[in-house]
């Protein structure tokens, strides 16, 4: 038998916040017997005898369609599909060829994958002069290092590694200190990045949602209602109704709805309501433009088993927030 050769384990979708799918990749799947893979919390050297040959964790390697690989060197990376890994953990991946009692261990032995925790901005505090802002965030594992970013535009900064050899986030964009300089009465956006150092892949990063905060205290109103409940405070974000209505769209068609003052920024919110019994209607889209919203119903590729009505009724709701 010929031993398999792995070229790493990578996260296939960075969006889940608890468990992520991990592909175990191979540049050469070896030959003879059956390619098997194993996921473990333990690290073993190749001559240790562990993981045991009869460890229940060994499974036959299969691709996303459940098929075993072809033998030998692969023109493009071949991936075993089926492993998941919790955020904030470090796991090891082993491979081998097995035919009866004969075993050929693969290399590297093992492959390591670290998945960072999902960070969040818990709070932002200012000094008395509103010239500094300090971001509060924490994760509970020892693998994830936190980095911080501040800007005034709300544009998400580059956060994923740009190459397999990149060992730290771009320090011209991210900083290790959670404290930033601020100009009083200016609004800022804050992000936190979870990063795993010494991770042999380019996917060891997770970014928080943005949180905005104004560096000042010259705003606001607190209001209690007659029941003694505080119904509005200066930290609230409220919705102000603008308009709503209904349009009928033809397949691959669009229409413009005039909305005075509309602009493509995050103070304007558009929600589309669609009848869910018309499956293709989930394709409805909108664009916020100066003075109007464009609502479209773009039919893309035809898919088997999905109905595609010639027209669809879309209800739109417009708010300022």
């Amino acid at each position, binding site marked *: 038998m010929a031993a398999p050769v792995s070229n790493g384990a990578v996260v296939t979708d960075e*969006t*889940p*916040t608890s468990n992520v799918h991990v592909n175990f990749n191979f540049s050469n799947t070896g030959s003879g017997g059956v390619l098997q893979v194993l996921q473990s919390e333990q690290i073993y050297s190749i001559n240790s005898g562990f993981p045991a040959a009869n460890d229940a964790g060994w499974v036959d390697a299969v691709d996303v369609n459940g098929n075993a690989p072809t033998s030998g060197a692969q023109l493009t990376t071949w991936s075993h599909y089926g492993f998941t890994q919790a955020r904030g953990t470090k796991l090891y991946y082993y491979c081998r060829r097995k035919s009866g009692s004969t075993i050929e261990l693969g290399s590297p032995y093992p492959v390591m994958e670290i998945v960072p925790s*999902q960070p*969040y901005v*818990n709070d932002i505090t200012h000094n008395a002069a509103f010239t500094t802002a300090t971001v509060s965030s924490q994760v509970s594992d020892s693998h994830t290092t936190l980095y911080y970013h501040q800007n005034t535009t709300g544009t998400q900064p580059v956060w994923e590694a740009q190459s397999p050899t990149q060992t730290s986030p771009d320090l011209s964009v991210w900083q290790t200190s959670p404290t930033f300089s601020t100009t009083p009465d200016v*609004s800022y956006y804050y992000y936190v990045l979870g990063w795993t150092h010494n991770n042999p892949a380019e996917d060891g990063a997770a970014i928080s*949602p943005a949180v905005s*905060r*104004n560096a*000042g*205290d010259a*705003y*606001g*109103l607190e*209001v*209690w*209602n*007659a*029941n003694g*409940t*505080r*119904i*509005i405070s*200066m*930290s*609230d*974000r*409220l*919705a*102000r*109704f*603008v308009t*709503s209505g209904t349009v009928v769209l033809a397949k691959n068609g669009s229409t413009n709805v005039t909305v005075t003052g509309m602009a493509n920024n*995050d*103070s304007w*919110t*558009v*929600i*589309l*309501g*669609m*009848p*869910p*019994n018309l*499956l293709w*209607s*989930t*394709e*409805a889209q*909108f664009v916020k433009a100066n003075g109007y919203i464009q609502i479209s119903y773009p039919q*893309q590729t035809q*898919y*088997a*088993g*999905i109905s595609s009505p010639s027209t669809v009724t879309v*209800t739109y*709701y417009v708010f*300022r*927030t």
Partner: protein
Amino acid sequence: MAHGLQVWNSDGRKMIDSTELAPNTYLANLTTSAYSAMSYPPSGFTAGDLVLARPVNNPTLLGGTRVPIGIGRTISNTQQFFGSQAIQNAGHTEWPNTSGIKTGLVKTQSGNISGPAAGEYGLDVYAADNSTIMFSATRSTSVKILAQGSLAGGQSFTYTPPTSLDYNKVYGVVNGTTVLNVPQAFLFPSWEFNVMYSFYTAASTPYIIAQNKVTSNNQNVSGWLGGMFSYMLVYDPN
């Protein structure tokens, strides 16, 4: 502005503007609907209302972890929330939300705030027409926006409410949701439409995921760009 009142919050966002035409909103028709009565939209709905929904306080869970919240199938010309008994009775083998659902409506305040009672104290804000009451410190019941944004096909967003808020008073705006599981039929593959919210009510720190994912045979679909899902998570402070 020559007259009136504008209020900004600490993020620099405008909260109240008396130059707009009755733009503020109020929360109405909060109710809990049983498994047998989960039709959409809920009672009291009028065109233009935003529909809020969330699980009941101690719900049954899908997979032991979460409660999917969104608009499901249409049965006998009546739309249903995902998980309703009507969907089960029609023969569809989707997850049954036997605990029922909590819903509410966010309505525009135009014409809906009554004038102050005799001798009442507080603050009322009138629109520029000098007659429409836009905001009342004693009679308004607005909701707070916790998170809002737009998700393209395949995207998701996770929101964990701070512990200072009551998780049982967090709602998702469901007007743009679609939750369907179409089983495989002959040569046609299965389809899973999950444009919805998932409430992870049993987590040690409860959270909510808004997602816009359409899959076939539980796999991403090549070339499927998807529509746009505008999610909005709101809080009932009343």
